């Protein structure tokens, strides 16, 4: 079991190689793609070898057990067979891409996407959990978008790739909803468990909505009518990509999904009518569209549509006979469609055209590619004894057993498709003409097309001997009768008669189709679904643009006003709903001081609002900050007061510098009533919020925990500091990391400007110089003292670092000779890196003594305690200091011309 999964994981190797070492892929395209192909081929052989006598197995790991989401995989003869096909054809496609795109700069990306695509498709096939299957399903959609959009420099290609993506993703979203409903109905999301309920009548009561949602996902993926339009459009991708999408992956995911669940869901009355109708309509559409195509690849895309339609019909029947037909049809189609597309790519490269008219007699001119093409096209037409013939036979047999009417319509549709096959093949077989090859192809491309064509022949030869062990076993695992086998000759059955009739009729169809001047489609048959889809997408776009234009007026004030008003309204509704009560006045709070301070705060805020000069603005902002600091102090928060004071000082320092340097005036706008109203409403809301919060009776379990354990567990009397460096240290680590990133961001933003002096004033004043030096000389030791006492008294890493930064700011103001720009830049970086390192190191140290991450390690000596939290605080100190220097250094007057 696990070895099988290992072989499915082999494409990871080239995927990693292409992602990590793209240069190697570019310089040795053939070698690397050859290696990737060899690995995938090995995986295919390993998978293939497991098919005979494989006991169904399942392996799962919990993922989100509460929701029934498991990382679960299943393996039986059918999934192993299909996985082997995907890997084998993937090998050919990768080999072909190495030649087809050898000169492309994007080859590594394509190789990575192809390998990733193979893995995603294998995931779809092997997933047991429906949710897991959905994830892989969406991955195939996304990766196919990247692959189809390979020539992204062309607008047409981008549009078509986006169309394919949108259709399949919209379907995928529906499918997810369907999966959830299915899971709820059946009580399990495991495919293996779901299938055990086949035939017990549970499926009949599944809601029709759930069924339709599931089918929407499968129909969009498999390009079933009416979502068929994206597949021919996806032809804009390179030939190997088309070969892979059409043969074994992507579109096959949809029919695979339907066939897997068919034994179960065909118990629902709507399943068979819905699915078979969609299938037949798809075939009809494909024939009508293909009849008018002259482009080789587009014509091939139409035959893919038709084949998908037939497979959908079989999945729709869901009978054991239909499952038998499904397996042989799927195999035959995968084996002939891949070489057809690869050969089409070769012909295009060789002769420089994809038009049928320009390729007349191409088989003669390019014999090996031509051989691959001819064998595959004959299999498509269903010439006995090629696998395509078997596919058609079993298809007709299954439909006849269900309803002769369905069998006749299927045969008629098949005649149309066979006509398309003749239209495809006969011109190329013309021996009278011989187009001139314009280019020689690398061997790998010819080989890549030839190998699956030889696989077709190999299947024919080996089928009689191995049918029970391989293909039959796969069919049995999918739901066909036990010990299934495939035979070429069934006797003179109605199915054989219908098949022969279809073949004869197809010649007549071909005579009609061959005419290049075929009349255009009548109005009633004109495609309507694609325009409808495009119009819907366009309407959504217009709606979005309109809403954007309305909300984004191009002025930040208006945009933010709308947002603030919306948030405020929501908050107001919430507040209003809550019970209202006024907070009780605390007598001990000392009102008198506040009767004085509140008006000062109001005045400062008003001045900051209306300041006309930079100086007024700075002074008023300074006052606001100072009053906030006093408030913190008044309400028993000395740590906050200190931090606020220092941060405010540094902030004003920076602000003054920037305003002076940029010459921006403090205010330029006149009074605006709208702004004032929004602001007043917001302010009122904040007031209500504060009143409400203060009136509430809080429960403080976390604070109580901190207060109880601060002294005993963390040996600190200053609980605020203990919380920062011990209890919640990991938050603090994140915070200083953010600070470091902000400083690096500032360096990036000002990179070009860092040589310039932006010091606001160039003071030569001896008074200021002396005073600043004296103050700095005082501040630095104070900073260290604050740091040291932080754990047991107001202080700590943040505060002391801000004090030190203020001292350095003062020195910068008077041009201290030792503080040049280059030195500051290095110091800032080193301090931040060192600080983060120390902080992280203090968190990692406990791991070495077998304790949890971030546990404090302590060393005691009597009443003296030393521990890793102090080390962590040192990390905080260094990082914050480095961060402040990172900003302050931009204010350095420039004396050294170098950095």
């Amino acid at each position, binding site marked *: 079991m696990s070895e099988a999964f290992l072989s499915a994981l082999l494409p990871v190797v080239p995927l990693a190689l292409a992602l990590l070492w793209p240069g190697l892929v570019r310089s040795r395209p053939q070698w690397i793609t050859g290696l990737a192909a060899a690995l995938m081929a090995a995986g295919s052989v390993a998978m293939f070898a497991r098919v005979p006598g494989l006991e169904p197995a399942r392996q799962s790991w919990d993922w989100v057990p509460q929701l029934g989401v498991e990382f679960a995989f299943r393996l039986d003869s059918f999934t192993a067979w299909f996985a082997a096909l995907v890997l084998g054809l993937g090998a050919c496609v990768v080999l072909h891409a190495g030649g087809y795109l050898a000169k492309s700069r994007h080859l590594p990306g394509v190789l990575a996407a192809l390998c990733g695509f193979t893995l995603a498709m294998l995931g779809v096939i092997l997933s047991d959990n429906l949710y897991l299957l959905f994830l892989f399903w969406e991955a195939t959609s996304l990766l196919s978008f990247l692959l189809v959009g390979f020539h992204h420099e062309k607008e047409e290609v981008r549009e078509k790739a986006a169309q394919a993506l949108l259709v399949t993703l919209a379907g995928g979203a529906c499918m997810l909803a369907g999966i959830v409903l299915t899971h709820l109905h059946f009580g399990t999301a495991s495919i293996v468990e779901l299938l055990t309920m086949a035939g017990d009548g549970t499926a009949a009561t599944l809601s029709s909505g759930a069924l339709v949602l599931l089918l929407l996902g499968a129909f969009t993926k498999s390009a079933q009518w009416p979502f068929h339009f994206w597949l021919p459009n996806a032809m804009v991708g390179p030939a190997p990509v088309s070969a892979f999408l059409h043969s074994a992956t992507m579109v096959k995911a949809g029919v695979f999904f339907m066939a897997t669940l068919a034994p179960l869901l065909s118990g629902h009355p709507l399943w068979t009518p819905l699915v078979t109708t969609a299938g037949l309509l798809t075939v009809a559409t494909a024939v009508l569209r293909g009849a008018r195509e002259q482009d080789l690849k587009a014509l091939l895309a139409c035959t893919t549509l038709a084949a998908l339609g037939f497979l959908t019909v079989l999945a729709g029947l869901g009978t054991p006979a239909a499952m038998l037909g499904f397996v042989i049809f799927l195999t035959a189609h995968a084996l002939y469609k891949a070489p057809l597309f690869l050969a089409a790519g070769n012909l295009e490269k060789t002769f420089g055209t994809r038009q049928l008219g320009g390729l007349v007699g191409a088989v003669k001119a390019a014999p090996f590619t031509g051989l691959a093409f001819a064998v595959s096209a004959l299999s498509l037409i269903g010439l006995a004894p090629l696998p395509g013939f078997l596919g058609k036979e079993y298809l007709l047999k299954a439909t006849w057993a269900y309803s002769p009417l369905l069998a006749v319509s299927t045969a008629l549709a098949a005649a149309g498709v066979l006509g398309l096959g003749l239209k495809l093949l006969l011109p190329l077989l013309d021996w009278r003409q011989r187009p001139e090859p314009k280019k020689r192809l690398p061997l790998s491309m010819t080989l890549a097309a030839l190998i699956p064509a030889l696989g077709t022949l190999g299947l024919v030869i080996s089928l009689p001997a191995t049918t029970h062990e391989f293909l039959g076993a796969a069919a049995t695992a999918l739901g066909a009768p036990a010990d299934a086998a495939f035979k070429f000759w069934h006797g003179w059955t109605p199915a054989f008669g219908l098949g022969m009739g279809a073949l004869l009729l197809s010649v007549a169809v071909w005579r009609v189709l061959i005419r290049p001047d075929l009349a255009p489609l009548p109005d009633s048959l004109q495609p309507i679904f694609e325009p409808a889809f495009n119009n819907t997408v366009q309407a959504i776009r217009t709606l979005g643009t309109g809403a954007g234009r309305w909300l984004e007026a191009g002025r*930040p*004030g208006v945009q*933010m006003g709308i947002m*603030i008003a919306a948030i405020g309204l929501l908050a107001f509704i919430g507040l209003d709903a809550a019970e209202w009560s006024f907070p009780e006045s*605390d007598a001990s*709070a*000392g009102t008198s001081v*506040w009767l004085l301070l*509140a008006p000062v705060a*109001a005045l400062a*805020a008003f001045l*900051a*609002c209306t300041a006309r000069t930079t100086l007024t603005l700075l002074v008023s*902002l300074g006052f*606001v900050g100072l009053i*906030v600091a006093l*408030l913190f102090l*008044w*309400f*028993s*928060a*000395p740590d*906050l007061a200190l*931090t*606020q004071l220092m941060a405010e000082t540094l*902030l004003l320092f920076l602000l003054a510098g*920037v305003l002076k*340097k940029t010459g*921006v*005036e*403090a205010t*330029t*706008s006149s009074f605006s009533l709208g*702004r*004032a109203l929004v*602001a007043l409403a*917001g*302010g009122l809301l*904040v*007031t209500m919020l*504060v*009143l409400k919060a*203060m009136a509430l009776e809080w429960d*403080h379990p976390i*604070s109580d925990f*901190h*207060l109880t354990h601060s002294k005993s567990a963390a040996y600190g*009397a200053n609980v605020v500091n203990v919380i*920062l460096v011990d209890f*919640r240290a990991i938050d603090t680590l994140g*915070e200083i990391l953010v*600070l470091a990133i*902000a400083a690096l*961001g500032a360096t990036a*933003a*000002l990179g070009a400007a860092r040589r310039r002096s932006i010091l606001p004033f160039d003071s030569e004043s001896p008074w200021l110089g002396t005073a600043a030096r004296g103050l700095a000389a005082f501040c630095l030791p104070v900073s260290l003292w604050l740091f040291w006492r932080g754990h047991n*008294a*107001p202080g700590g890493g*943040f505060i002391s670092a801000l004090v030190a930064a203020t001292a350095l700011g003062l020195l910068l103001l008077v041009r201290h000779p030792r503080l040049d720009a280059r030195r500051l830049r290095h110091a800032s970086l080193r301090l931040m890196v060192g600080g983060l390192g120390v902080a992280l190191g203090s968190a990692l140290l406990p791991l070495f003594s077998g304790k949890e991450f971030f546990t404090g390690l302590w060393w005691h000596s009597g009443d003296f305690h030393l521990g890793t939290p102090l080390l962590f605080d040192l990390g905080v100190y260094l990082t914050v200091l480095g961060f402040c220097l990172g900003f302050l250094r*931009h204010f350095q007057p420039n004396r050294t011309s170098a950095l």
Partner: protein
Amino acid sequence: MPVLLAITIGLLATAGLYRLLGPSRIDALVGLILLGQAANLVLFASGGLRHNAPALIEKGMAVPTDPLPQALVLTAIVIGFGIIAFLLTLVLRSSDK
């Protein structure tokens, strides 16, 4: 007293919002500074305010203040300072013509 404090915080927020909605870069900057002060105070006030309560744990002293909002506000002040400093460099950069 709580009402007076709440009104003061509301006024700070009003001033901040008014500046924030203004047309110029400096408006946005000053608005964010004021709004940041108001936000810190809201957080601080919602934790419950006590005058003259001990800030440290000492034997034989009264029940100390709630340390949790203080720790939150302390980091908020520093982060707010970081954001404004970063915005200042952006203002500086955008005036580099």
